[in-house]
């Protein structure tokens, strides 16, 4: 039982000491990673990149209707 519990504890400790003893370059790139992920997920995804079909339609039937419309337009539409 003890060894079963100690495995996750050892993993947590591994990461804890890894981050704690990280080199200067390691800290710098982690700061960049965090800033980058915030920009990508909290700014770009949230405000600039909605999933259009999910946003504009409530179910897959409506989505497929819309795409069928798009696929059956004449070439002049794409002029």
């Amino acid at each position, binding site marked *: 039982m003890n060894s079963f519990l100690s495995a996750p504890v050892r993993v947590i400790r591994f*990461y804890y000491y890894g981050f704690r003893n990280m*080199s200067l370059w390691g800290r710098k790139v982690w700061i960049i990673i965090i800033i*980058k992920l915030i920009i990508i997920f909290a700014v770009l995804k949230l405000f*600039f*990149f909605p999933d*259009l079909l999910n946003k504009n339609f409530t179910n897959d039937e409506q989505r497929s209707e819309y*795409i069928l419309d798009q696929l059956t337009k004449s070439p002049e539409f794409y*002029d």
Partner: protein
Amino acid sequence: MIENVDLALVDWSRAQFALTAIYHWIFVPLTLGLSFIVAIMETIYVRTGKEEWKRLTRFWMTLFGINFAIGVATGIILEFEFGTNWSNYSWFVGDIFGAPLAIEGLLAFFLESTFVAVMFFGWNKVNKKFHLTSTWLVAIGASLSALWILVANAWMQNPVGMTFNPETARNEMIDFWAVLFNPVAVDKFLHTVTSGFLLASMFVVGVSSWFLLKKREEWFAKKSILIAALFGLFSSLTVAFTGDMSARTLADVQPMKFAAFEAHYKGKQNAGLTAFGILKNSDEKIGNKTIKKFIFRIEIPGFLSVMTGGNKDAYVPGITNLVNGDLQGAQILSVIEKMGRGGIARETLNDYKRARMTNDKEQVENILNFMKSKEFIEEYFSYFGYAFLKAPEDAIPDVSIAFYTFHLMVMLGFLFILIFILALIFAFRDTLLKNRWFLWIAMFSVPLAYIASESGWVLAEMGRQPWIIQDLMPVSAAVSQIKAGSVMTTFVLFAVLFTALLTAEVSIMIKQIKTGPNH
């Protein structure tokens, strides 16, 4: 309601995707190749037990870590763009694109994320063999995650293993193995991954040359050059071989791209391969597109026929034949004919849509049965995308871009083979320090490796225009009906974000290189 597609929207959407992909690809090949070079170096350390090899391994692992960390998640933005800018395409491709990308996500997360931590935090905490296994798993995991992205991309170049379901307006995967072992996917994976190995080898040789020019870390630099040059020579020869395989496959499944990157207009037997050439506009046209002619050309006679058909008598169709059709030299339908067949496929889909709206169940059933028939799929639906073209010449990509990117990539590829051979000769004779000219060339060849790598992607993606999915969907039909201005805004945002990331990477990397392996 937008009345017709804004061409500026298509252009900005394409420009944005190109910008994101090009920046993303700056980080990826170095990750792919450096992970293997580091794994080889660590293997030598574990086998010899010499601390110098550990020092060497840790230095290159640091540079790998910087590149990996800065580049990680930059590819996710491409997936955002699918949902926002390319929603028609995203829906149309259905699970065929989603499945490989999902596998890639899981592999990348579990394999790379878990074992990268052991790579960096595990020195002196786990035993040597477990650490080495983790390093190899990171290398293999990086290439495996690339595999799934390339499988998805290959499907766009050569759609196989699927059927179109008109009820959902989506393509559905019916043969996973056909998608995975798509000949384009096999060639693309081997060629792309080994080109990443080549780039990383050039990076290691270039950076090590800098140390030698600065008369620093002589042992470290010489050993690094030896390992990287061996790996680089193997990789560059494999790149040449897989490039040849890839070209043969393209001649079969994307003949227009093949003809475009050779600027081959008139089909013939005993067709020559252009080793080097300069193009100019001529007075002749195909529709409204100007035919390019050579003002200077070095040709290898008959080699294009040998490459594609195995002998000099093999007929290689040119751009003109592919547009106008050629039922004598090869069984090629004209683009006009394909437009007609694609039009029938679209009209059938239209009939289905109308029958569904009027709730005419019998008609719906009849049309569905017809659309599922082999005749409809092979004779009409396989040309569906041609229904969106307005003129036959719209099927021709930009010949100049395809030609120059292809020839630049090939010429640089041969230069890298030469550099790796010279590096090995000088390394074995221990004359690297005496040949400073070579060290300078090696150092300045690092950016050339990036140019060659990016050229390959520009050729792959620009050469298949106007298609986003070969023959089934042109880019103009794939784009979402949104305002061009909003795409332009995010284009600028990405340009700023990626430039900042690249600047950060380069500055941290230069600092670490200057610090050297003694940090």
